[in-house]
């Protein structure tokens, strides 16, 4: 590890804190940010988060402060706050590790967030596979209630908040905020038409803010050390650090925290120990299934949020692939995933993923025709241009990247 940058926010105390003990978190200045926040007006906290430029860590990178403001401005008898821990992107496990290593950081961030927007009920929407995280989070909440950090009077203030864990039921699309809200209402987890946005009209039609838990884990740091400090970390427009899950053909796969603006090359060589011995680097896929490709030419591209980036960062999964990878098999696996997880609301996604899977299976079995290629391109077009939500666009993206970089011989235009 040559020049590993040592600034850590999320993983700072991992391993030092006993995730089962509130006291242990407190010894590392835990809940100090909450104490500081409660002494100020909620509007001040909101402005602080807006000033920090924090972006959502779930994938889209929307400005957290802007989302909060929409909910805070709404005049409503009741507001909800939901911490999104439905993480189900293959190759991404950052939120699970966050909850397993420092559950109180999520809880503290969530309390401050709820205070800033004026929510009195909050939930942690949890992936049902994460049994250990569930146990630790429930324990953390129980301790917080006992110590009067939650309940009628949060730390002796006039602010009242209740948090409970809501276990999902195994659906990828629930990570999308409007689908998540539908599932909490006991409906099919299909995304809703927007506007109205969830932060204006969400759970039970009350304003509801849904934030990824990694986003929330940044809040105590921002409150304690100030937005000005925070916005100078990382990249312009994408401040702070990000958790990356690096897997595939690297020497030390794992979870690493790096400042935003880090390059894929740095992540592979300075953090993950470089490409595995005896393997030939081909490319890294950024952002999970359906993510963009970073071949050697794009390895020095900074990883940031925003529209102008060539490599959408997504939720932070990085899969390093070597030249031996079986593309046909991998594409079938991707498409099986998209077909299985498609919610079925819109036709392009429901039928498109199904048909694309059939075509890719034929490709895998060596029975791929000229017409299949034409059809696949049409399906990709339809998925990309006409799907109801981003899920369909992702389903198309991976295959499109394989075509763009001409990784499969059969995809090359053939002369008749």
């Amino acid at each position, binding site marked *: 590890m040559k020049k590993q940058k040592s600034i850590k926010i999320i993983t700072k105390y991992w391993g030092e804190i006993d995730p089962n003990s509130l006291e242990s978190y407190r010894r590392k200045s835990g809940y100090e940010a909450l104490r500081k926040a409660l002494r100020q007006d909620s509007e001040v906290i909101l402005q602080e988060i807006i000033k920090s430029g924090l972006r959502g860590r779930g994938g889209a990178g929307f400005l957290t402060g802007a989302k909060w403001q929409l909910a805070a401005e709404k005049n409503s008898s009741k507001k909800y706050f939901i911490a999104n821990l439905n993480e189900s992107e293959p190759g991404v496990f950052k939120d699970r590790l966050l909850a397993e290593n420092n559950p109180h950081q999520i809880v503290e961030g969530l309390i401050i967030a709820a205070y800033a927007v004026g929510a009195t009920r909050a939930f942690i929407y949890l992936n049902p596979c994460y049994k250990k995280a569930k146990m630790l989070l429930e324990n953390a909440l129980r301790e917080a209630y006992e110590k009067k950090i939650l309940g009628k009077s949060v730390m002796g203030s006039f602010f009242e908040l209740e948090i409970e864990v809501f276990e999902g039921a195994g659906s990828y699309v629930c990570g999308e905020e409007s689908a998540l809200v539908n599932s909490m209402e006991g409906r099919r987890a299909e995304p809703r038409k927007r506007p109205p946005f969830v932060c204006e009209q969400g759970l039970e039609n009350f304003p509801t803010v849904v934030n990824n838990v990694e986003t929330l884990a940044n809040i105590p740091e921002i409150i304690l050390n100030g937005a000005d400090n925070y916005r100078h970390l990382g990249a312009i427009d994408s401040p702070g650090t990000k958790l990356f899950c690096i897997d595939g053909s690297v020497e030390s796969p794992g979870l690493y925290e790096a400042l935003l603006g880090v390059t894929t090359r740095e992540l592979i060589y300075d953090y993950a120990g470089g490409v595995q011995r005896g393997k030939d680097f081909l490319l890294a896929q950024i952002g999970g299934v359906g993510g963009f490709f970073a071949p050697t030419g794009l390895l020095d591209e900074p990883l940031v949020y925003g529209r102008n980036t060539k490599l959408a960062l997504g939720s932070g999964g990085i*899969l390093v692939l070597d030249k031996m990878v079986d593309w046909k098999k991998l594409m079938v696996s991707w498409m099986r995933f998209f077909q*299985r997880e498609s919610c079925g609301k819109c036709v392009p996604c429901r039928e498109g993923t199904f048909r694309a899977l059939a075509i890719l299976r034929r490709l895998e079995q060596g029975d791929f025709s000229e017409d299949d290629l034409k059809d696949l391109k049409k399906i990709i077009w339809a998925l990309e241009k006409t799907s109801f939500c981003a899920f369909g666009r992702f389903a198309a993206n991976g295959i499109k990247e394989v075509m763009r970089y001409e990784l499969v011989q059969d995809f090359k235009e053939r002369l008749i």
Partner: protein
Amino acid sequence: MTTQNILLHYSPQRRNLLPVIKEVSREEGFVSETAADLIAKYFNLTRAEVLSAATFYSEVKTKKQPELIIKVCDGANCNLKGSEETLRQIELFLGQKEGDEHNALVKIERVSCFGQCLSGPNVQIGETIYDKIFPDRVIDLLRGYLE
């Protein structure tokens, strides 16, 4: 626990619908039409509303399930680590394909991701998730369950 008993633990607000159908599915093995009717009546919904939610989620079943369900992770990371080969071994050993429903004792499913990618290929048998289940390990593991 019967559906009736489960309902006693929840107030009839929509936010409790998913927890209820999950618990019924877990306790009784699946959400039957009779159970769906009871739930619908309690929540003041129609049977269609209850079943439309129940049929959506992979954790909720609406058909009788085999005693043992083997879930093989099909996420890209596990796939690269060889989960397909593990799945093949399981299929050969049990003499049935992934998704087959003719065997009342065992069913094999592909699932999306357990979030344990570093230690893949991951396989869940019953309630337990096992990691690093390469093709050579899976048969011994299964024998322990089937005998």
